């Protein structure tokens, strides 16, 4: 009898699995999950310790679809008003429910396909690190647990809205960081809102607690299946067995929860903080001419992408700049993240906070010959990589012509504006020649204000129209204080310079390179030397008649004077 029932369950499971795997909702969930993963990996060079977790977020979308599909399947008899007819079948309701649970094997291929395809794409895009099999397995378990929950819901609530609401609850739980504080956020099915995995320079043991979380999800899957069976099973003995199994599943879930609530090993956080506060102690530096590239271990594949724009800028300089330029990766880590510091002694947290505050990424003052690159922000390909290349080329050119990243006088550590300075136009021209962005993209930088209007910065008693270079504000390149503010006048002259033969400009620059680097040398002089008219900009803001210029309406910035 038991064998017969088992074979019936297997047969029903096979049918339900084949229905589930062909279900349009599941296929849509597969597409949606894949789309979400693509949105994440498309932006930057993927870091496996971050992307593994985001593939789980894609599985969350698939899980929502599976939950709805499983609920619809399990609630089919009641919804169609055929409960009495089904009751007359040889297979009992419990057997059919067991068939539905067994049918969840049908979504495993879809989940594995999502994980496998996403992993393949991530690897093909030059991912850094290695995939975390436990995290990926956790994503598959999430889908199975969601399906089991759907069966349990469908066994009791047949209305389709029930599945939809529970699927929404599953989604909303992923961002319940405002309700669940500290490490409790890891207890939700898949936390996608609170973590700093995308900025870590390497994997951190226990962050996220992947093994314990996978165990919790497995426990939830078993518990949901038990609940589904308990709703439909008849007979005291069977119910007692299910109750015992349910208690065991709850115990496993509690044990897994307790494991997730443990603090991250102190040694790991110590190592992370020291890597953040003193990157030079762990980074590997590669010298290339006058430039040193210092990258965290494992990030060597980004070197080629970084070198090209820097090399192309330096190759066009009439004379080599004095000091060595260091291009260094930094980590914009926040120690106020309680998922990172929960359960640690307050003295340690305070010490780590102080160390991180003084890290290069957070320090107010930056060394002059250093360009910082935040970990996890460098794009892999496409238009974003072109923008990042321009940003790096411009930062290099600004360093080469002596524009400081921030004001050195009073007020200190504020981004300065090189108003009317010839060297600004030269820096922008060098960056344009090195990376060749489209003219439209460059021109769009003049109209980034509200409603496509202009933006400005107050310098002294005037308001200067500013120019937003491609990728500005994306933090591909990080300068404390934001770096110098490029002006529309500088861009306009640089744009006009690109129409001249390069050798003509090189001859003018080489003849008086020292003079052009002086901040006193105006851009009008450079235009005259090149034989081009000074570009005229359309009026930006006019002073009120008889009154002072309307400089007070814009933020005040110092002039770059060094």
């Amino acid at each position: 009898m038991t064998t017969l029932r088992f074979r019936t369950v297997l047969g029903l499971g096979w049918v339900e699995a084949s229905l589930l795997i062909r279900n349009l909702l599941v296929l849509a969930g597969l597409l949606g999950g894949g789309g979400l993963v693509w949105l994440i990996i498309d932006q930057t060079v993927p870091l496996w310790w971050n992307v593994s977790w985001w593939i789980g977020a894609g599985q969350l979308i698939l899980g929502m679809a599976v939950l709805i599909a499983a609920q619809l399947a399990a609630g089919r008899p009641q919804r169609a008003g055929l409960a009495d007819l089904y009751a007359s079948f040889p297979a009992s309701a419990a057997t059919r429910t067991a068939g539905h649970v067994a049918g969840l094997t049908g979504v495993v291929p879809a989940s594995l396909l999502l994980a496998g395809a996403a992993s393949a794409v991530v690897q093909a895009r030059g991912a850094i690190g290695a995939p975390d099999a436990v995290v990926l397995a956790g994503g598959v378990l999430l889908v199975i647990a969601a399906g089991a929950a759907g069966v349990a819901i469908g066994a009791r609530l047949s209305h389709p809205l029930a599945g939809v609401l529970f699927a929404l609850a599953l989604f909303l739980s992923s961002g319940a960081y405002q309700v669940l504080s500290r490490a409790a956020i890891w207890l939700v099915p898949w936390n996608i809102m609170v973590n700093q995995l995308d900025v870590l320079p390497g994997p951190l043991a226990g962050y996220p607690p992947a093994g314990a979380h996978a165990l919790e999800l497995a426990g939830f899957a078993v518990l949901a299946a038990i609940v589904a069976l308990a709703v439909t099973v008849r007979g005291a003995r069977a119910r007692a067995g299910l109750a015992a199994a349910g208690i065991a599943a709850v115990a496993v879930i509690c044990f897994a929860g307790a494991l997730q609530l443990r603090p991250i090993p102190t040694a790991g956080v110590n190592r992370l903080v020291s890597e953040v506060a003193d990157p030079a102690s762990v980074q590997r530096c590669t010298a290339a001419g006058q430039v040193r590239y210092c990258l965290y271990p494992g990030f060597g594949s980004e070197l080629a992408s970084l070198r090209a724009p820097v090399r192309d800028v330096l190759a066009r300089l009439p004379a080599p700049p004095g000091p060595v330029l260091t291009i260094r990766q930094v980590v914009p880590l926040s120690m106020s993240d309680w998922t990172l510091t929960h359960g640690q002694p307050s003295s340690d947290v305070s010490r780590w906070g102080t160390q991180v505050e003084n890290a290069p990424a957070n320090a107010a003052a930056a060394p002059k010959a250093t360009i910082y690159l935040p970990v996890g922000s460098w794009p892999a390909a496409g238009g974003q990589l072109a923008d990042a290349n321009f940003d790096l080329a411009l930062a290099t050119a600004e360093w080469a012509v002596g524009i400081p990243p921030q004001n050195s006088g009073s007020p200190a550590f504020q981004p300065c504006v090189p108003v009317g300075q010839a060297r600004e136009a030269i820096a922008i021209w060098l960056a344009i020649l090195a990376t060749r962005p489209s003219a439209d993209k460059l021109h769009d930088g003049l109209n980034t204000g509200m409603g496509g209007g202009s933006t400005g910065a107050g310098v002294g008693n005037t308001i200067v129209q500013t120019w937003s270079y491609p990728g500005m504000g994306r933090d591909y390149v990080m300068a404390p204080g934001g770096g110098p503010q490029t002006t529309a006048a500088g861009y306009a002259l640089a744009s006009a310079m690109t129409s001249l033969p390069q050798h003509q400009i090189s001859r003018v620059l080489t003849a008086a390179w020292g003079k052009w680097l002086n901040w006193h040398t105006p851009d009008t002089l450079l235009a005259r030397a090149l034989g081009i008219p000074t570009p005229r900009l359309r009026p930006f803001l006019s002073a009120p008649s008889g009154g002072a210029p309307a400089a007070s309406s814009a933020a005040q910035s110092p002039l770059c004077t060094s």
Partner: protein
Amino acid sequence: MHELTGRRPRRSRLRALPWLARPVIRTMPWATLLTGCLAGTVFLAIQAHVARNSSWQLQQGNVRLALLPAVAALAFVPGAAFRPLTLTTPIPSWVAPAGQLLLASPVLAATCWVQLRVMNYTIPTHALGHAPAVYSLIAQFTGWCSVTVAAAVCVDRSRYADLGGAVAVPVSLGAIAAAWNIPASASVLVGPPATAHGVTTAWYAIAAAALALTGAAMRDHWHRYGRTAPRGFALRTPRSAAR
């Protein structure tokens, strides 16, 4: 029978409307709609409670998320039960679902109002500055509802009619999520980068288009069977009859 014999006189339709009110109200899926509206509101109320105790404020983003269950519930409202039967009655078959949608409108409006009040509850009275304008959020909610109704009605006219809402919810929410995340559409439909005025205009335009689609789908009289009927099924013309 009237459906088969010609156009119905407009006056007789109007006269029949008061008689329809009671069955439309009685067949309205109140439990479904109210469950969806209450689920989101309770979720937001819990968040508001935590926010008050933790000294942070709810944002319009929280309200948007809390409105999703109400939008999902709306997908189950316009289902036309017994459509083959209602097609034979003197009253057009779209009147009942349209009436139910009209009945759902004040419930949804009240839900939105309550949720905005809940959000305001977390904002201190002495807070500096103006609260963000809510007209763009209302436009977004209207657009979401219209897209969902259009999806539900279109599914109702397909062979998945029995799962109308269950299919329409993922479809519409997926479309909304895609519009939110794809840069090209987000630049118009999400503010910032789009202005509140632009967002409002765009979502009301989408709502208008979706309502037009809804109207066209509701007035469509034809059944659709995407799959060949099984062998021996009654819908298939018997060979003997063909001969």
